[in-house]
């Protein structure tokens, strides 16, 4: 053929998908409330309810800010992807996409891009509200922000691949929210996002230690709580090394699972 133009590159299609995904995310009320604003709303409620109650020397807003940041990362990656992909599979969007020359990798670039944009925006908003409205001291030391960067990246990456894999669990699109939201909520409670982690029963902390959110929350506490605060952690330290290992293992497991179980069509598609 004379006019064979090149197919658009995987990256350019991926960026176009990112734009579309971000736009659709911010247009969807349910995702906005239960993923984007959820941690912000909870931070507001906690600081209103507990006010100046002392949490080992800091106020409620200061104590809960890192947990809400961790929670936001997990919601924006794991919950958001697991629900949206389950819906897209059930509604036949994935099947439609598979019938176009869109490179499969571009779809995932779009999803990961959306997670990055929304979780960074969410973090910025949380930080602004904490620092400007609730009067929380925001750290300035570069070493803390360096830690923040790798914890954030490991958290969003592992949450995203696990979300992609978990999207095959709900049997239908309708069931997606009902299956995934309680799992995430339970994990949030056990991981000490809504409570003082060290005050949780030992067995619960044991269960939480298997999953990524606990380590994400602990890592964020190390970034945002005052120096010396680690004496209040169960082990008396931030355990950043262990956290890095657990999150990395989940990232690898998630990658493996996502590649194995992801499908473009419903289970009954034949």
């Amino acid at each position, binding site marked *: 053929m004379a006019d064979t133009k090149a197919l658009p590159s995987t990256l350019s299609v991926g960026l176009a998908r990112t734009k579309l995904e971000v736009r659709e995310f911010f247009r969807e009320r349910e995702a906005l409330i239960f993923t984007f604003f959820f941690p912000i709303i909870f931070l507001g409620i906690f600081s209103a309810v507990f006010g100046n109650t002392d949490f080992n020397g800091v106020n409620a807003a200061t104590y809960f800010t890192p947990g809400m940041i961790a929670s936001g990362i997990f919601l924006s990656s794991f919950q958001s992807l697991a629900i949206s992909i389950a819906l897209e599979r059930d*509604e*036949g969007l994935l099947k439609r996409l598979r019938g*176009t*020359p869109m490179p499969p990798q571009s779809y995932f670039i779009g999803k990961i891009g959306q997670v990055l944009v929304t979780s960074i925006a969410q973090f910025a908003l949380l930080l602004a509200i904490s620092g400007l409205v609730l009067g929380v001291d925001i750290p300035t030391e570069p070493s803390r922000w360096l830690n923040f960067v790798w914890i954030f990246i490991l958290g969003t990456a592992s949450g995203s691949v696990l979300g992609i894999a978990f999207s095959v669990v709900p049997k239908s699109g309708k069931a997606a929210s009902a299956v995934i939201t309680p799992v995430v909520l339970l994990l949030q409670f056990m991981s000490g996002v809504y409570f003082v982690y060290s005050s949780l029963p030992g067995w619960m902390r044991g269960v939480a230690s298997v999953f990524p959110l606990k380590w994400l929350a602990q890592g964020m506490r190390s970034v945002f709580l005052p120096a010396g605060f680690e004496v209040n952690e169960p082990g008396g330290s931030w355990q950043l090394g262990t956290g890095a290992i657990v999150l990395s293992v989940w990232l690898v497991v998630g990658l493996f699972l996502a590649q194995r179980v992801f499908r473009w069509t419903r289970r009954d598609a034949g």
Partner: protein
Amino acid sequence: MENDNAVRVRGLVKRYPDKVAVNGVDLDIHRGEVFALLGPNGAGKTTTTEILEGYRRADEGEVSVLGTDPAHADRLWRSRIGIVLQTSRDEAESTVAELVSHYAGYYPNPRDPDEVIAAVGLEEKRKTRPRKLSGGQRRRLDVALGVVGNPELLFLDEPTTGFDPEARRQFWTLIENLRTSGTTILLTTHYLDEAEHLADRVGVIDDGRMIEIGTPETLGGRGARTARVSWSDADGQHELRTDKPTAEVAALMARFGGEVPELEVRRPSLEDIYLELIGKANDAKSVAIEAGAL
């Protein structure tokens, strides 16, 4: 070198655990033609179509679509076909215009998105999201997304099921325009009038078998269109098939000495022929079942 056929299928078989959905289908679709796969629900139309589209794997047989086995298709191949699936209900939060131009970005030589939106008659709905569209408008959006890549071959799986007559007419015009632009089209339908109106050739499929392939005019074979003359007398109802109905009526007039009771001269409609084809296939099946039971 690709031959003149956009689609070539030989001995296609697809089995499900409790059903042989496609049972030895042969099919050629010429470039530039509109081919209708016509058959009742459960005949195997979607299964056949989705094998050609690369969604499902054949258990047996040869399949070539645009010179390629769809099971091993690449992006370039996908850029040359367009697909409108039987069901689609994705509830995108994007508008019609946003979706059509986004999908155009997947293809090397897309059509102009605005022209596509105009062609499917959705200009008024450019800023509307899919969930706010009526069934017919929704289907036209599906077609817009299927053709925006400027495909050589377009698959339409029951594009008008559930339409009111007016919407169906409009849709037919849309397909006729696509055909004029040179697109090869495979469409499935269980509406006979749709196949008759749109298709250059029709394949009648029932219970996984291709019963017959022909133009709407020749379907059912030579005998199928012979006139039927029917009347009644003291012995009851009579019907005969004839190539010379006028002569038959004249003979009957002579016999009855004037008025012939309940005289009727009929040429079978395509619908009659179709029902007869499907009926024959089912008769043959029940004979086979009885024979097997003995």
